């Protein structure tokens, strides 16, 4: 594939919207790379290694197990495309990645029926193909440990529901939820939804931040990690290592886990009684 641009750049939402006509979304017409290049701005992130990771994901997971690719790709993408949150909040970067660098991955992962939803190319962070994985990795990692990310992304309902709830921006809350997933207290998608809604609802009167204080993340270590990318090899067969900007305090996670277990046991799970 010689058509990969050298860098991941920026393509505005307005410009992206113009390229995403129904023929493109139905994969009947290719995205016009030359025209996209004319309206894009250059970025500083090397595109080839990111593209390579997407190719690897498609190779490792067959079309029938494409949802399972999320848990593999989320940490790899986060470790390969090293961004600050400020940079990651810019949708034009995700647009360029999806429309110009790796559109094949978007079709492969999200083709439903005869077309791909527009928001998988250009949309909110919790829906856009690559932004949702990157942010899931950023919000569910425990400092350098992507282990909780793999667990969280192994459940589609974590990505579809929990990721967009404001409560998970508090790291101990996110980690306590993953713990319930790891220990098997919650298993199915419906249970994840029930837990997420219960934690979110209780969070309107309970200050999790006060009950389970977090430590400030070390922005300098994070910057160092971004700078070290050029010298690092990102493994595909094992989970890569993330930025060492501070682990979530264990006692804070442990303070929330029993509380969430109680909230979950009191929460209604949709369809629970009729489930086989």
């Amino acid at each position: 594939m010689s058509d990969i641009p050298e860098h991941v750049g920026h393509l505005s939402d307005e410009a992206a919207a113009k390229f995403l006509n129904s023929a493109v979304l139905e994969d009947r017409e290719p995205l016009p790379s030359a025209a996209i290049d004319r309206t894009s701005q250059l970025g500083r992130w090397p595109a080839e290694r990111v593209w390579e990771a997407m190719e690897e994901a498609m190779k490792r997971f067959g079309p029938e197990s494409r949802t399972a690719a999320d848990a593999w790709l989320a940490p790899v993408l986060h470790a390969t495309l090293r961004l600050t949150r400020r940079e990651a909040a810019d949708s034009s970067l995700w647009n360029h990645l999806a429309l110009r660098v790796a559109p094949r991955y978007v079709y492969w992962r999200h083709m439903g029926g005869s077309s791909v939803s527009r928001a998988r190319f250009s949309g909110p962070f919790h829906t856009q193909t690559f932004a949702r994985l990157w942010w899931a990795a950023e919000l569910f990692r425990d400092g350098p440990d992507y282990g909780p990310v793999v667990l969280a992304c192994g459940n589609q309902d974590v990505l579809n529901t929990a990721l967009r709830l404001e409560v998970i921006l508090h790291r101990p809350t996110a980690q306590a939820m993953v713990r319930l997933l790891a220990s098997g207290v919650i298993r199915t998608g419906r249970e994840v939804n029930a837990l997420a809604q219960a934690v979110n609802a209780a969070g309107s009167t309970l200050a999790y931040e006060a009950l389970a204080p977090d430590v400030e993340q070390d922005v300098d270590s994070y910057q160092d990690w971004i700078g070290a990318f050029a010298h690092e090899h990102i493994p595909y067969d094992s989970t890569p290592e993330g930025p060492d900007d501070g682990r979530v305090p264990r006692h804070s996670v442990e303070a929330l886990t029993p509380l969430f277990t109680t909230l979950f046991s009191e929460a209604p799970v949709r369809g629970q009684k009729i489930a086989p």
Partner: protein
Amino acid sequence: MTRRIFPYPVVVGDVSLEVAQVRLDDIALPYEMISTSERMVALHRIDRRDWRSARLSVQVRAPERELEGPWSGISCMALLAERRTNTRTAVRLRRERPGQWAGEVELHRDRHLAQAELTGQLIADVDGVAGRMIATTTDSWTIDLRARTPSRRDEIKTRWIDFAADANPHLHAFRSDPWLVEAVGEEPVLYLNSGFDGLKSLLESGRPADRAVRDNLASQIAMGVWTAMFNAALYLDEMTSSPQWPGGWRESVLRRMLPDIFPEFSPEDALTEVLARRRSGEGGGDLQTRIMHAASRRAQVAPSLGALIRTLSRTSQEDE
């Protein structure tokens, strides 16, 4: 904390938050960058593009006599949050004296982009339950990383362009329209067709005789803008099990118009209702009538119309 029902007693009376000082990489920010009346801090400074962090000195005050209640162990936290960067920082403030807390909140530039919101919360044990929120600050502060002068006014970005010009192939289909709204992306843009005969001279006319026509046209345009923005905001709906505010300008459009669309509902209930109608395919008929009603109300509200006209005249000065 409006409209939320608490299953326990909460503090009655105003809890206020104040930003007393801001240090940018340890250099005090000039006082005019902090506006107490607008509750705004403007961090964007042309001569210091490469700053890394801002330290905000925060003070929270609550009426002392209101704090005597069935609460124990009252503590106070400051929260700095920006939805766009998914960042939320909580800092516990120290008690200076009864009813007053203070502390420092650090804003790291790497973790923020446009606007962060700063609020305060009082937390206490209530009926044996720890960590209950018993009050939030009445008004939040906005830390703006982009604005030069502190101001909260939000206006619609407006551009005069010729729809038929070679440079605008995407507008050729609309070349005979006087204006159109692009309600995608980070902020909506109103395009005015400079190739439309007489439009520009009318909208910019200062002649008293033209005023009524000009205002009427501006009002019509404003109504179309509100309608387009509302529909765009509605169609971003992601079909989650519980309705979510979309954030950004979309949220602000929904929040402003929903009270006119469903006056009998709280904002949250109105959001649930409008999304339910859109999802069930009942987006036509009655809903559209209500949207038109709300848009026309917005468009005729004097400040909004005035602002639009101001925007138009200012844009034209910038463009020419």
